[in-house]
């Protein structure tokens, strides 16, 4: 029962993340998702033990507090508030999120998973979280939203790992978490620098770095 509610909450945060244009709000949602993800291992483990609690505390601190603070800081320095023109409009993002969920349920039902899997809902939900994160990366323009998408995707991977908590050593998760930490740092710094160089954090500008010369800045014939 409790796990179902947590999982539902996870899904709602997914929808909230794709539905909202305000970046501060998005960060809060991702933070909330981090907290939910953090609580999961305690419940999944089923009995009172030190290991899941340590993991939970660590995850909640990193995902629920540190990352959001970092992101909030880079948001402030980059001075953006909104994702103005996403590649996929918000109503369709919501519908896509639902479709992703349906798809991942289908995928989940196709996988043959070990019987000890806790909470049959967790796997499809983890799948859909991963895919929602990817969708966010693909469909948004601002670098910060893409970082958020990355975080959501990581949350999904983590949730998938949690489902395997009893079989798998948690080292894997810790490794992933460390990866993430570095990645967010790098991205935060990158965002900071992009915004300082270009006055905004629109990733379109990065297109200019490609070999192909974009049409709009092709050098015109000098007179």
């Amino acid at each position, binding site marked *: *029962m409790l796990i179902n*509610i947590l999982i*539902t909450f996870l899904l709602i945060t997914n*929808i909230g993340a794709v539905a909202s244009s305000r970046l501060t709000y998005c960060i809060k949602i991702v933070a909330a998702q981090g907290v939910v993800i953090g609580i999961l291992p305690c419940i999944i483990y089923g009995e009172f033990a030190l290991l899941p609690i340590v993991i939970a505390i660590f995850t909640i601190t990193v995902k629920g507090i540190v990352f959001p603070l970092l992101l909030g800081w880079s948001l402030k320095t980059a001075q953006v508030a909104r994702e103005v023109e996403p590649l996929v409009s*918000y*109503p369709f993002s*919501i519908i896509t999120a*639902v479709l992703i*969920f349906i798809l991942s349920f289908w995928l989940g039902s196709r996988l043959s998973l070990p019987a000890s899997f806790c909470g049959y*809902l967790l796997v499809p939900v983890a799948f859909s979280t991963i895919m929602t994160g990817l969708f966010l990366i693909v469909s948004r323009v601002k670098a910060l939203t893409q970082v958020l998408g990355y975080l959501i995707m990581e949350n999904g991977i983590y949730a998938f790992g949690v489902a395997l908590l009893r079989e798998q050593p948690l080292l894997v998760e810790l490794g992933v978490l460390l990866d993430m930490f570095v990645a967010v740092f790098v991205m935060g710094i990158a965002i900071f620098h992009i915004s300082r160089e270009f006055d905004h954090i629109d990733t379109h500008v990065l297109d200019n770095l490609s070999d192909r010369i974009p049409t709009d800045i092709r050098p015109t014939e000098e007179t």
Partner: protein
Amino acid sequence: MKSVLLNIILALIAAPLLPGIINRVKAVFAGRKGQPLLQLYYDLHKLLKKSAVFSSATTFFFWVGPLAGFAVLAGSLLVVPQAQGKSLVQFPGDIILFVYLFGVMRFFAVVSAMDTGSSFEGMGASREIQFAVFAEPALFVGLVTLARKTANLSLSGIYSSFSWHDGTILMLVSAAFFIIFLAENSRLPVDDPNTHLELTMIHEVMVLDHSGPDLAIIFYSASLKLWILGSLVVGAIIPMHTGNIIFDELIFLSGIAALSLAVGIVESCMARLKLLKVPQLLIAGFALAMLALIFQIM
């Protein structure tokens, strides 16, 4: 049977109290004293005493609309589940009729607004009908979920067979219903009931030209609609039936009151959404209902 009949009479009498509660909550939040709780009753009394002014452009649809809307609401009051999830009339398939009766009401509201030829009312009507395009499927998906959950096809059949075990699904569905409830009743994130002169309003602007008894009927119907759709939300949030009529009645009524309280709080804390954002909100409601359904199917 008796208790259900009592409920219907109670709804007819007490419905105008709900806007009073909402307004009082808003006033408290804003640090004002606020209007009396019974303000709508005074308004209705005043309006019924007045005469009416008709626009020269109008035909009889102008005044038939509100009357028909009220009659249709009274019809839907027969099938809506109230305390204990019971309704006066119950038959498989009343879900569909229920939703469609609201469609009829909307149709008449729009036609009677368009009858004046006012561009303001046209604007309101256009928005009202647009939001229905998103709200109606969402409402149906929510109902499908509940129908599947309880294997029942009548509203009261569904609402009387809930239990706490359906937690997740009920939570999602009632969230979806709450969004639809706010949209259909033209409450805050969708429509601002306080003003009617802004070009952004929907329901209030549709009744701009109505006056006297017609306006009284419109106000009364609006509060009744609040009650009826509110009972759908309350029934899903509090799926509790003790079996004791008095207890259940109290639970239901306090649920309705709490819902008005919640609406008041939402209205005090939120700004109205941009009009372009409203479909997004309704689609989010649709998504919630859809999630509930997927959970139910799995």
